[in-house]
C-alpha cells in the first residue's frame, strides 16, 4: 500500500483545481442558449432554380472550414483558382466572391453560428465582408 | 527536490515577489502590444529587428557559456569545477527560456508560431535555431536535474547522463553557431555578412556568460555561504580573460577588413556605430562606452594580481558584461540595418513598452534561475552535512 503524504492539502488542492476547471459547465448549467437557425433567404439564393451549394449541406455543416482551408492553399500556393462544385460546374474558389455571393447575409449566416459556438475566425481581418442592406 | 524552492528566508520571498511584479508589468505591456501590433515598439520598416532579437542573440551566448564549465570538468577532469557545473547548466535553462520568449514577443502573429513545426522548412536557419535551442534546453534540464538528484542520494552520475553531457558540449557550440548563421548568410547586409560571425559570437559568449555566472557565484558565496574554492574562481576568471581578448581581437579583424578594403558597404555600419552616419549617431556614445569598458575590464583582468583581487574582480566582470552587452545586445543587430538597402538612414530606439516587456522576460529568467539555484544550493548544503 502506498501512503499519501500531506493527503489533506493535496486532496483540497485537487478539489479546488477540478472546481475551477469545470467552472464554465456548472456556471452555465441550465442556461444553454438555443441553437441558432441559419437564414438562407438572400436575393441570390431566392433566384436559384436549384438551391444547391458547392458541396452537400451535410458536408458543409461539418467541414466548411476544411474546404475553405483547401481552397485558400490551392489558390494561393498552386495558383489553381477554379474547381468543380457538386454539380460539376467550375467555380472560383473564393470566400468573398463565391461563398458570399449567395450567402450575402454574413451576420445571419456566419456570425450567428460562430458566436453560438464561440469561435472567432480571422477571415474578415483581411477579406472584405459583403455590405449588408439591413 | 522541488520542495526546497518553497521554503526560504523572508528576503528570498521578497525577491520572488518583486520579480513577479516586474513580470506582471511586462505581461500587461505585452497584452498592449498584442492588441495594437508591433507598432508600439521602436521598430520600423528599415530597422525591422531590434531590442528583442538582440536580447535573443545575447542570451543564446549566455546559454552556450555553460560549456566553459562542463568541458573542463568532464573532458579534462578539472575537479574544482565539479561543484559549479550545475550552476552553468541551470543558467543555460533560464537563458534558453528567455530566448524563446524573446522570439515569441517579436512575432507579428504569435498565435501562428507553431507553423514553424507544422510546415518544417530545412532551408531556413530559423527552423534549425528552433531545433537546437529546444534540444539544448531539454538536455540541460535533464542533465542538471539528474546530476542534482544523484548528489542528494550520494550516488555518482549515471552512465546515460554522462552520455548526454558529452552530447551537450557540441550542442552548446551549435546553438551559437546557428544563431550567428541567422545573420551571416544574408546577402546585402554587409555588417553581418562575415565568415567570423559565429566565431565572434562564441568568443563573446565565452567571456560574457561565465562572467555573469562568476558574479552570481561570488554573490552566493557571500550571501548564502555557498562553498566555492578560490581555485575555481581563479580558473574561471582566466577563461573569461582569454575569451574577452579573443573577442576584442575578432572585432579588430572586422575593422581591418572594412577599413583597409575601403568598400563603402563594409564601412558604413561601423561608421554609423562609432562616428555617426549622415548626421545620425544615437548609438555612438554607447559604442564608445562599450570600447572603454572593454579596455578597462581587460586592464583589470590581464594582470594576475588584479584578477586575483576579490574586490577588483567583480568590477572587472560587471564592466565586461556591460561592454559585451552593448556590443551584441544593442549595436550588432541594429547596425546591420543601417544604412538600409536604399542607402537611407533610419534610426532605432526601443520604446517604453518594448523595454518593459524585455524587463519582464529578464525577470522570468531571474525567477527560473533563483528557483533552480535555490534547489541546487540547498542540495549541496545537505550533501555536505551528511558526509
Amino acid at each position: 500500500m502506498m501512503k499519501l503524504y500531506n493527503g489533506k492539502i493535496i486532496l483540497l488542492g485537487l478539489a479546488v483545481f477540478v472546481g475551477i476547471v469545470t467552472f464554465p459547465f456548472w456556471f452555465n448549467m441550465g442556461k444553454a442558449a438555443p441553437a441558432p437557425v441559419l437564414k438562407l433567404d438572400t436575393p441570390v439564393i431566392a433566384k436559384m432554380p436549384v438551391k444547391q451549394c458547392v458541396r452537400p449541406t451535410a458536408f458543409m455543416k461539418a467541414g466548411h472550414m476544411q474546404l475553405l482551408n483547401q481552397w485558400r492553399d490551392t489558390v494561393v500556393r498552386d495558383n489553381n483558382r477554379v474547381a468543380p462544385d457538386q454539380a460539376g460546374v467550375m467555380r472560383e474558389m473564393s470566400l468573398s466572391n463565391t461563398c458570399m455571393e449567395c450567402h450575402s447575409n454574413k451576420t445571419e449566416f456566419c456570425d450567428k453560428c460562430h458566436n453560438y459556438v464561440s469561435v472567432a475566425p480571422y477571415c474578415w481581418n483581411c477579406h472584405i465582408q459583403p455590405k449588408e442592406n439591413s | 527536490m522541488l520542495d526546497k524552492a518553497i521554503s526560504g528566508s523572508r528576503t528570498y520571498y521578497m525577491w520572488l515577489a518583486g520579480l513577479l511584479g516586474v513580470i506582471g508589468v511586462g505581461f500587461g505591456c505585452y497584452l498592449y502590444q498584442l492588441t495594437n501590433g508591433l507598432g508600439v515598439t521602436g521598430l520600423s520598416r528599415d530597422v525591422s529587428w531590434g531590442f528583442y532579437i538582440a536580447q535573443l542573440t545575447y542570451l543564446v551566448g549566455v546559454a552556450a557559456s555553460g560549456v566553459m564549465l562542463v568541458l573542463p570538468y568532464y573532458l579534462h577532469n578539472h575537479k574544482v569545477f565539479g561543484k559549479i557545473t550545475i550552476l552553468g547548466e541551470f543558467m543555460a535553462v533560464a537563458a534558453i527560456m528567455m530566448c524563446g520568449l524573446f522570439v515569441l514577443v517579436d512575432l507579428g502573429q504569435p498565435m501562428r508560431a507553431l507553423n514553424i513545426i507544422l510546415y518544417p522548412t530545412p532551408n531556413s536557419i530559423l527552423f534549425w535555431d528552433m531545433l537546437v535551442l529546444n534540444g539544448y534546453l531539454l538536455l540541460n534540464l535533464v542533465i542538471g536535474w539528474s546530476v542534482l538528484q544523484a548528489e542528494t542520494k550520494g550516488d555518482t552520475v549515471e552512465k546515460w547522463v554522462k552520455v548526454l553531457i558529452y552530447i551537450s558540449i557540441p550542442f552548446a557550440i551549435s546553438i551559437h553557431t546557428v544563431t550567428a548563421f541567422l545573420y551571416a548568410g544574408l546577402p546585402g547586409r554587409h555588417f553581418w555578412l562575415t565568415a567570423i560571425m559565429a566565431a565572434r559570437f562564441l568568443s563573446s559568449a565565452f567571456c560574457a556568460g561565465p562572467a555573469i555566472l562568476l558574479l552570481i557565484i561570488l554573490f552566493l558565496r557571500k550571501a548564502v555561504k555557498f562553498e566555492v574554492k578560490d581555485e575555481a574562481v581563479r580558473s574561471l576568471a582566466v577563461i573569461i580573460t582569454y575569451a574577452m581578448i579573443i573577442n576584442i581581437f575578432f572585432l579588430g579583424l572586422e575593422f581591418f577588413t572594412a577599413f583597409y578594403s575601403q568598400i563603402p558597404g563594409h564601412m558604413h555600419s561601423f561608421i554609423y556605430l562609432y562616428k555617426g552616419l549622415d548626421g545620425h549617431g544615437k548609438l555612438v556614445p554607447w559604442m564608445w562606452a562599450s570600447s572603454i569598458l572593454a579596455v578597462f575590464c581587460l586592464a583589470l583582468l590581464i594582470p594576475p594580481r588584479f584578477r586575483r583581487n576579490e574586490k577588483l574582480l567583480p568590477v572587472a566582470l560587471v564592466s565586461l558584461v556591460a561592454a559585451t552587452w552593448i556590443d551584441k545586445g544593442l549595436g550588432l543587430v541594429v547596425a546591420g540595418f543601417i544604412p538600409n538597402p536604399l542607402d537611407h538612414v533610419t534610426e532605432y530606439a526601443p520604446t517604453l513598452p518594448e523595454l518593459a516587456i524585455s524587463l519582464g522576460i529578464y525577470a522570468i529568467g531571474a525567477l527560473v534561475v533563483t528557483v533552480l539555484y535555490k534547489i541546487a544550493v540547498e542540495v549541496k548544503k545537505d550533501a555536505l552535512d551528511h558526509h
Partner: protein
Amino acid sequence: MDKTRRNFLKVVGLAAAAGLVLKPAGKGFAMDLVRRVPEGAAPTDKALKAGRWAMVVDTKKFTDASREAVMEACRKAHNIPVMRDPRHALKWIWDENYENAFPEQMNEHIPEYQKKNKVLVMCNNCANPACVRVCPTKATFKRPDGIVMMDYHRCIGCRFCMAACPYGSRSFNFEDPRKSLTEIDPSYPTRTKGVVEKCNFCAERLARGMQPACVAACRNKELIFGDATDPKSEVSRILDERFNIRRRPELGTQPQVYYLT
C-alpha cells in the same frame, strides 16, 4: 522522498505524455505532409502563363505624373494604405532617387535627367530569392512562373525575409492597415497586422488574364511586362536590343526587374 510515490508519479507522467503524443499522431497531425487539394482544381481559362515573369522599367519615359499614376494604381488595386508614420510605411512600388536605387552606380558626372528623374522600385521577384530561402514556414515561396508569392495566412511575422531582402522591398504591418485606409476595393483583401507584404507582380490579375495594375496604368509603355524565357516576348526583345541594368546584380539574387536608363 518516498521511492514508491516517485515511481508511481513517473508512470502516470509517462502515460500522460504518451497519450499526448500518440493521439494526435493517429489523426494525421502533420497537415503539410499530405495537403489535400479539391478535386479538379485548375487555373482559370484566361490565366496568363509564363516561364519566368519579368518587368522592364523604361526610366527615361517616366514623368512625375506618370510615376504617381502607377503608384496610385497599385495602392488602389491592393488596398495599400498611406501610413502616417513613415517608419510603418507599406510600399509595393515606389520612387527613389537614382543614387538610392543604384547606390553603386552613382558617378560624379551622370546625365542631368538621371539625377532629376526618380526611379520606380519594387520587389524584384528574384529568380534566386534570399527571402524564400530564409522563411521558416514557406509563407513566402517561389512559383514555377518565377513570382515570389506571400501566403499571408501562414506568415508568422518573424521578419526574417525583411532582413534577407537586399532591396528593402518588404513591408511589415506594424498596425491594422484598415485604420489608415480611406477606401477599400472589396475584390482584393487587405492584410492583417503582424504580417509582411510586398509586390506580387499582380498574380491575382494575371490569373484573370490581365496585365499588372502598374503596367495597365501606363499610357506610354513606361513599364513592359512579359515572359523572359520566351525569346519572342516583348520583354525579351527589348532586353536583347537595349542596354539594361538591374539592382545589385552582384549579390546573385537574379532580380527580374530590368531598368533601361
